[in-house]
């Protein structure tokens, strides 16, 4: 029983780490640009597929390093060409546009790489369990958790210790003033979008090592990421991180006791948060 519980808590932590990684990217874009990026799951899939294609040339580690940057580059281009035109307009339009993008990316990946699931090879020494008694704790899972943790720490260091991060945080509060102070807001939003998409691409590479690759790989991750943002509170990145881990672990623990409710508990948490605290656990009053 304890092993089972431990197994599912670890599992929940890993899933939660994915949710958090996705949700942090979504949240960055949403906070600064007011755009809900429906295509986030699509960018995640591109990350996985690009890594798959690059692997024969660069090896696993090279692909893990390069692929998210390529995805971020695509994200920056998409922002420049399409999303930028919609800033300041009704959020309806950016939602519809990214919605259409999600369709196109899903169909595009299916066209290029095929509809069937592709195997994604991770280095074999990473796939082995660490010890016989904790059979579920493969090196890959530990590695994933450590990597996500360090990326998240890195993200918060960027946000709190660099000039770019300072501008992003300031822009979240009051973009107009930041612009008046001489910051190029267009570039700022562009970079910020790229940063968010980078996180999606990274999550894509990591997730394909665990779940395999299908064009719809992002679909199952994007809804919980929305919920992570709602639970954590709009406008708060630590809240988003907490929300992601919370719903991941909660659904992991529920799997032990009531497997069929493991999805439902996520939505129950969201409903409870909306009743008790509509702005989310760490959200600011009156932001939305």
């Amino acid at each position, binding site marked *: 029983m304890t092993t089972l519980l431990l197994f599912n808590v670890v599992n929940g932590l890993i899933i939660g780490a994915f949710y958090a990684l996705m949700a942090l990217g979504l949240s960055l874009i949403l906070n600064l640009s*007011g755009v809900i990026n429906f295509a986030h799951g699509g960018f995640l899939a591109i990350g996985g597929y690009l890594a798959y294609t690059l692997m024969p040339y660069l090896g696993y580690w090279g692909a893990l390093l390069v692929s998210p940057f390529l995805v971020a580059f695509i994200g920056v281009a998409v922002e420049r060409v399409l999303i930028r035109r919609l800033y300041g307009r009704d959020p309806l339009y950016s*939602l*519809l546009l990214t919605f259409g993008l999600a369709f196109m990316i899903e169909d595009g990946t299916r066209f290029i790489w095929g509809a069937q699931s592709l195997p994604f090879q991770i280095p074999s020494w990473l796939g082995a369990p660490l010890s016989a008694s904790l059979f579920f704790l493969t090196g890959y899972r530990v590695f994933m958790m450590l990597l996500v943790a360090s990326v998240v720490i890195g993200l918060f260091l960027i946000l709190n210790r660099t000039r770019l991060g300072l501008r992003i945080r300031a822009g979240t509060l009051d973009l107009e003033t930041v612009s008046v102070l001489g910051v190029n807001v267009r570039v700022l939003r562009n970079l910020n979008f790229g940063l968010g998409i980078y996180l999606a691409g990274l999550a894509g590479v990591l997730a394909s090592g665990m779940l395999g690759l299908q064009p719809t790989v992002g679909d199952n991750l994007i809804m919980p990421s929305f919920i992570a943002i709602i639970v954590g509170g709009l406008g708060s990145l630590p809240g988003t991180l907490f929300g992601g881990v919370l719903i991941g672990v909660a659904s992991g623990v529920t799997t032990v006791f009531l497997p069929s409710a493991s999805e439902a508990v996520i939505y129950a948490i969201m409903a409870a948060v909306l009743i008790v605290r509509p702005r989310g656990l760490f959200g600011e009053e009156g932001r939305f």
Partner: protein
Amino acid sequence: MWKFDKRAGDVLVWALVLTAPFWLPALGSYVELGTRVVIYALAAMALNFLLGYTGVLSFGHAAYFGLGAYGTALTIKYLCPSTPVGMLAGTVLGTAAAALIGPLIARLRGVYFAMCTIAFGQVFYFIAFQWRSLTGGDDGVSAWHRMPLDLGFTTIDILNNNKAFYYFCVLVLAASAAAMAYLLRSPFGRTLLAIRENERRARFLGIPVDRHIWMSWVISCFFVSVAGTLFTLMNDFVDPRAVRWDQSGNFVIMAVLGGMRSFWGPLIGAAIFLILQDYVSSHTENWMSFVGLFFVLIVLFFPRGVLGLIRRKSAS
């Protein structure tokens, strides 16, 4: 000038809708496409009650559409093989769910409202997907069909006569449209417009804004679940795709494409969208890309929709 145009527009819309089954086959199409347009038009008009006339963006209407569909299908299959009873059950189910969820989200605005409607919409997708013993999971609810309408003195065979079913759907659309138009013309509807135009001012005037948004939400979901009941009757089948989030997106794009600020806009949007989709999906396997591209192009170049464009032309 505009007043005349509007009445002429109404007449034109109804003339086209009422004669469609006779000229659609002649154009190489089929009656079912017309039926689909009528059903989706009702769904998009219901969404537009909220989106265009209350100014609140819902991206989760597929949930209530799907609840209407599942309620009807399950009632006819297991409880009572009667079309009107099934429709009633489906509509009640969808409206009740909306009424329960409404208070949770009526306080939220803008992007936050949209996100929460998406997330709550997904709840029902998961239920439809995972409650296999009841909903059949991924396979959907099949092995049932709609029943002819028994009016006592005569029966209307909407099962085998596809034109009769088309006109049945048109009748439901007409009744729903009339009800929505009546509501929008009433003081209640004017209050919704006031909220759309300036929520803060409406609040200062003592209007209970959250309660009005809740009511508008429930009314909108009521009509969308009516559309859902017709949808499942048309297919004699329902599966979780009817509840999925891409369905909600379709409703929104129809409303936008036709023109959110006009009453008949969503109908025109539904017609254009479905005819295009029908054409593209019969010519290429990659129709999803085209639909996605269509979304992008509408947002970039056509945000006011067809009727918005016409209206601006006639105003200038």
